[in-house]
């Protein structure tokens, strides 16, 4: 486990495990992906690995939340499906935005405007419609950089 240096919102000092975008940018981005559908989860994991990200996958929102709580400063971004049986993506998003300072991307096969609006209003930094292409995932590091830049004011 990497020793984390306190507050997740301080972006200047980087602990040994933190991704600060220096060397193999954006390789090594630490992503937590959550989806209850095994096919989608397998495809996301493969795509994210092909982007050279460090991927942790979860098929339950509850599990994802405990992982994030226990390993607070070891993730850079969370990608979550919206419709999941135990806890849905919106609830997970609300927990994450109130407890941690991580960017969250929501993903769904549901493209209805009111659902997208809800996600964005609750604080999702992006909302992607399935099927997601690898080109889209190659750009998600921008959300991490943008958030860090906003925090260091």
């Amino acid at each position, binding site marked *: 486990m990497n020793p984390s240096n306190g507050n997740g919102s301080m972006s200047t000092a980087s602990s040994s495990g933190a991704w600060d975008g220096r060397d193999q940018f954006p390789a090594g981005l630490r992503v937590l992906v959550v989806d209850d559908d095994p096919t989608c989860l397998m495809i996301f994991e*493969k795509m994210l690995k092909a982007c050279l990200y460090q991927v942790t996958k979860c098929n339950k929102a509850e599990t994802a939340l405990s992982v994030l709580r226990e390993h607070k400063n070891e993730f850079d971004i969370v990608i979550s499906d919206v419709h999941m049986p135990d806890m849905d993506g919106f609830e997970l998003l609300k927990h994450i935005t109130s407890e941690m300072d991580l960017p969250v991307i929501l993903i769904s096969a549901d493209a209805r405007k009111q659902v997208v609006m809800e996600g964005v209003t609750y604080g999702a930094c992006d909302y992607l419609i399935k*099927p997601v292409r*690898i080109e889209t995932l190659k750009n998600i590091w921008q959300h991490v950089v943008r958030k860090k830049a906003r925090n260091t004011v």
Partner: protein
Amino acid sequence: MEVGQMQRRLVDYTKSLFMEGFLDAQFLQLQQLQDESNPDFVVEVVSLFLDDSEKLLNDLTMALDQPNVDFKKVDAHVHQLKGSSSSIGAQRVKNACIAFRSFCEEQNIDATLRCLQQVKQEYYLVKNKLETMLRLEQQIVAAGGSIPMIELGF
């Protein structure tokens, strides 16, 4: 049959799956993800999809067989199948799910039962096609050949 012939047969067969709408561009994304470090990725993810979808279809059949149909539950299952089929590039299954969802919203029992039949039919068709395609690939590899990349110029 020698390797070159087998490869040509595979290319023609795969192209027909795209032309007939069974597969869409998303499937190409999966093929591009396969490499030496993970040479069985497509087989694995297709098998996962086929097994998982079969379960979903069974759940759907049961859910629609209840005296008081829980359309929210039915919709949730169809939504999941729509997501996984679109992620794998199984276009006709995905399209059948889209129609299905609109009838779920209307809570139309007859129409949803017809949709279920339609989705099942598309599932079995694409299952058959994908298994044939993967078998052709296996034969090529077993004969020492490599799997040709599909160029879609249409």
